[in-house]
């Protein structure tokens, strides 16, 4: 099909303008972070890196950053592992797969606000579902304060996220497992390999690209997680479940420390760029082959 320069302009201008606008706003945020802007109306008092230095001296900032890192460490491995095991189990289950698969996937369609509402109740120490179930089967001694405990709340929230995202990992792994050549698997079966041996020696080494996608996407999720925190704990108890994006929102829109909020945004941006740039270039290379 023939096309001219005019066509390029015609087709790409809307997208181009939107993308330019977004990058311009990122730069704008970066510039705001260098100003002492307090209050609703813009105030341009350039103060260099003062906002960042303030931030680095706040214990709250380091707790939030640590919580984001805990999210990555505790959320990603179980989600990926469960997703892979379930994908393999589904692949082996043959026709039952069509029945089981949607059960792990429907949470992906729900809003985090719904998930948060639901799981805040599951974890409620007084009248929550999990403690009620434990009491119901005579294991009342195992009842926990869950979401009400500063020590457990973050893990509880991550549990809800694992419930929501396992189906996502599972789908990516299922596609990857189906791309593995049938012959390799059949040949190893003829040689007497067990399910576990096939899993370890054939499946795991051949789904690395799916792992890349899962880890990249879940890392980005861990960096921007906000809704679950807002709905389930408001960052509490204390600030035990606060994360950077929550702090950014509170600092900017509640305390009106806009310069400080912008500095937190820039830190989130830097952390995200470390993941996004390599990931985007890697996936573009894959798409071309």
């Amino acid at each position: 099909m023939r096309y001219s320069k005019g066509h390029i302009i015609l087709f790409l201008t809307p997208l181009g303008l939107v993308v330019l606008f977004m990058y311009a706003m990122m730069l704008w945020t970066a510039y705001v972070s260098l100003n002492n802007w307090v209050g609703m109306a813009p105030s341009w008092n350039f103060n260099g890196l003062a906002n960042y230095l303030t931030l680095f001296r706040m214990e709250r900032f380091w707790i939030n950053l640590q919580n984001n890192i805990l999210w990555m460490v505790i959320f990603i491995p179980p989600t990926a592992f469960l997703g892979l095991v379930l994908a393999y189990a589904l692949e082996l289950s043959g026709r039952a797969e069509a029945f089981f698969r949607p059960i792990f996937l429907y949470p992906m369609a729900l809003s985090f606000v719904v998930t948060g509402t639901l799981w805040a109740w599951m974890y409620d120490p007084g009248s929550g579902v999990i403690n009620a179930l434990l009491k119901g089967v005579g294991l009342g001694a195992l009842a926990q304060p869950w979401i009400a405990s500063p020590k457990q709340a973050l893990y509880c929230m991550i549990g809800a996220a694992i419930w929501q995202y396992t189906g996502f990992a599972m789908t990516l792994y299922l596609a990857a497992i189906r791309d593995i050549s049938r012959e390799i698997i059949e040949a190893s079966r003829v040689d007497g390999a067990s399910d576990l041996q096939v899993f370890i020696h054939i499946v795991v080494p051949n789904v690395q690209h799916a792992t890349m996608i899962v880890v990249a996407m879940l890392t980005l999720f861990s960096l921007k997680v906000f809704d679950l925190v807002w709905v389930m704990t408001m960052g509490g108890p204390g600030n035990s479940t606060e994360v950077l994006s929550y702090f950014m929102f509170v600092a900017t829109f509640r305390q009106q420390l806009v310069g400080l909020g912008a500095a937190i945004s820039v830190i989130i941006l830097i952390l995200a760029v470390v993941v996004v740039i390599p990931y985007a270039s890697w996936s573009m290379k894959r798409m071309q082959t």
Partner: protein
Amino acid sequence: MKRPTRLWLHMVLTIAEAAWLLPMYVMVSTSLKNPREVALGQYIAPPHGLELNNYIVAFGVLKQGLLNSIVVAIPATALAVFLGSWAGFFLAMFRFRHSQTIFFVASVATFLPYQIILIPFTQFMAALNLFNTQLGLIVAYLLLNVPMAALISATFFQMLPPELQEAAALDGCGPVTFYFRILLPVAQLGLVSTTILIFTMIWNEFLIAITLTQGPYTQMATPVLAGLKGNYAQLWHIQMAGAMITSIPPLIIFIFLGRYFIAGLMAGTLKG
């Protein structure tokens, strides 16, 4: 070859399935219980009757929010998919100077957390007098989702057979005619997937919704549901009814168009 019975497989799948269904089950059953039943704490027991009053109460709180979500999500989705697929088509079909760069730059913009543009976004909306309006939300979601729609639709369009283009070229059909006459009717898998994924994302979105609107008249369903949790604290039957009502559109999409939803979700990771 003899198939082993695989006890482990059935155990893993059954346990995991029970764990994944339990939250949904208690959400549905509790949303239909009366307060006395809920107070018993026997959440596994099915409801005795159908306490539809919970839904009436929750709907009363949510109805303006639901309406706002519909009014915002439908035009924002339609425009984002149109403008996104317009560019996505061109990027998927033609190789020209910098086409890869444009694709790359748009992907990066899509994946970066949008917290980083939230502050200028609110200023921009305030400057245009769009703060706390439905139009403002439409503009915001449109801007955020055009790059996403471009990437997802481009991923699908790349899978179309090249013969389609060759045949069109022989007939002397240009890109604009091709987009409207051939691509839109032929690439329905991609377009439907992009549309329902973006609709669901907007419907479920929370951060933009609470940042750009305040108060009951303009808020979308998700902030209202989050507020319901505060106002009906410990009234789990009302909260669960509210959560159910808010989930109806995405769940209907998932049940009837699940294949497209998942396809869109996968394309959104650029998995190739």
